[in-house]
């Protein structure tokens, strides 16, 4: 699969064209418009337009009464002194730091495991992906029940093993970690499938050669698998980053930002500001902040895991 795609990609650049074929520029322009128009109409109205408008509204005061007034940078100035906003940035970053390493390391290990020859590995792959396809609210409810302080099954087993009873979601210092565990549980299979695809793209002959040279399994993994997997890793990191920074559904269902502000992420705060306090302008400004943070993170990520650009 990956091979055919890369070939397709380079051929598709359209830079090299076999001699004797005409570019057909003029006639194709018109027909292209016909093909593109339906999608572009929907895309512009429901995606591009609102995205641009969001940036515009962030400079405005707009309540649901519908009065729109330009207030310049006031929304952004307010962020500077809004302690809830600061907490939401910190929570978002902490949440990201809590989820990224396990979501990358465990999924890579799991993918390597599922890539081994063994019976039943397809069952394992299927099972691992199940949490990802479940409705987020379902995941939230089920885990809330397992996390229950008094009757939850997790505390029951903890106590049985002589451990303490943990206040998973009601302790301010614990809640964000508890939610992070759930997110790792539900996204792990997804990342695993991505890594598996990358692993299967690595040529078997390389491993064969390494084996003949007497490399150990660990050496092979470090010297061959990891470097060749770099494009996949980079992509998985980016996707995980975008997914966790934007994460809303599960947190909303499980804690709704609480207790206190302990799980209030930026996206939660955005929702509260815009749709519970009806401050659309301020909400839009938080949107812009989320976007800026994402862009910075992706920029840093690209610097750290530099990959040759591949079309």
């Amino acid at each position: 699969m990956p091979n055919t795609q890369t070939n397709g990609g380079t051929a598709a650049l359209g830079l090299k064209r076999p001699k004797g074929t005409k570019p057909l520029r003029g006639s194709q322009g018109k027909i292209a418009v016909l093909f593109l128009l339906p999608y572009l109409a929907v895309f512009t109205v429901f995606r591009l337009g609102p995205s641009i408008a969001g940036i515009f509204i962030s400079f405005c005061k707009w309540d649901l009464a519908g009065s729109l007034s330009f207030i310049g940078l006031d929304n952004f100035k307010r962020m500077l002194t809004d302690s809830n906003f600061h907490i939401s940035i910190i929570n978002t970053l902490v949440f990201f730091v809590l989820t990224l390493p396990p979501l990358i390391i465990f999924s890579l290990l799991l993918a390597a495991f599922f890539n081994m020859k063994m019976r039943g590995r397809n069952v394992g792959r299927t099972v691992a992906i199940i949490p990802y396809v479940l409705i987020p609210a379902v995941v939230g409810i089920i885990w809330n029940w397992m996390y229950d302080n008094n009757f939850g099954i997790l505390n029951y087993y903890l106590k049985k093993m002589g451990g303490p009873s943990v206040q998973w979601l009601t302790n301010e210092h614990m809640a964000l970690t508890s939610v992070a565990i759930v997110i790792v549980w539900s996204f792990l299979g997804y990342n695993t499938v991505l890594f598996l695809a990358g692993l299967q793209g690595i040529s078997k002959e390389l491993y064969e050669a390494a084996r003949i040279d007497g490399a150990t399994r660990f050496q092979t993994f470090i010297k061959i698998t990891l470097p060749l997997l770099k494009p996949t890793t980079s992509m998985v990191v980016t996707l995980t980053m975008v997914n966790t920074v934007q994460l809303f559904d599960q947190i909303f269902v499980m804690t709704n930002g609480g207790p206190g502000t302990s799980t209030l992420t930026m996206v939660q705060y955005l929702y509260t500001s815009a749709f519970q306090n009806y401050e659309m302008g301020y909400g839009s400004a938080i949107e812009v902040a989320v976007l800026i943070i994402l862009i910075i993170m992706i920029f840093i990520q690209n610097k750290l895991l530099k990959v040759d650009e591949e079309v």
Partner: protein
Amino acid sequence: MKKKIKPGLKYLLLVAVCVVFLFPLVWAFVCSVKPEAEILSYPPRWVPKTFTLSNYTTVLQKYPYLSWGVNSLITSIAGTLLILFLASLAAYALGRFHFRGRNLIYGTIVTMLLIPIQAYMIPLYLMCAKVGMLNTYGSIIFPSAANVTSIFILTSFFKGLPRELEEAARIDGCGEFTIFAKIMLPLSKPALSTVTILTFIANWNSFLWPMIAIRSDKMLTLPVGIAQFMGSVNSNAQFQYGTALAACCMAIISTMIVFLLLQRYFVEGIATSGIKG
């Protein structure tokens, strides 16, 4: 030199992995058939003392659960079909035609991959409110049809198809649309099924936007409806784990039916979309 990992250890690991992923679901099913009093008793039991389906009947009788399911099905299927129609046409043009502005259009579309729903839902909401679209199926279907991932996947697929095919057809005098519909589309089944799966699951699980766009109880989709059972969302006094878990289990079953039917394509789908970003 190199030690093989023992088969026994491998299977132990495999079982452990399955337990980690399935444990919460099995536990939810076990609890959903217990009466509330037994759910809230200590210690928890894996085999219910009393087996009851009353939680399920409560969900079906007291909540418009089936309507939620139907709403979800309608919006997910309609959204997916619309995406397939719009995206295959557009991606075909972007992947195979030469015209000015192609890279600009493609670049603009793909940039939107980075911009999450949270970043444009406020203007979207204000717009839908203005034209009276809120609380309709359309308010869920159309925004979902402005899908970017599908353009991404299909464009790179169409780019990869051999050019000789269409040159031959063109010499035979076929119009561009005939080439697209009769030659290219049948060849695109793998890519189209990938898009179908990915967009269907995304639509089926979509939560935040439907929650904002739909306010009447009957029009809710399943994800939003189920969230009503959660205390933090809807601080109702009558919150009960039993009914909430029964609602979850029914959703799990319906999702699993779809998933298992399409499972093969689904895993391929993630892999393909992943490779391309």
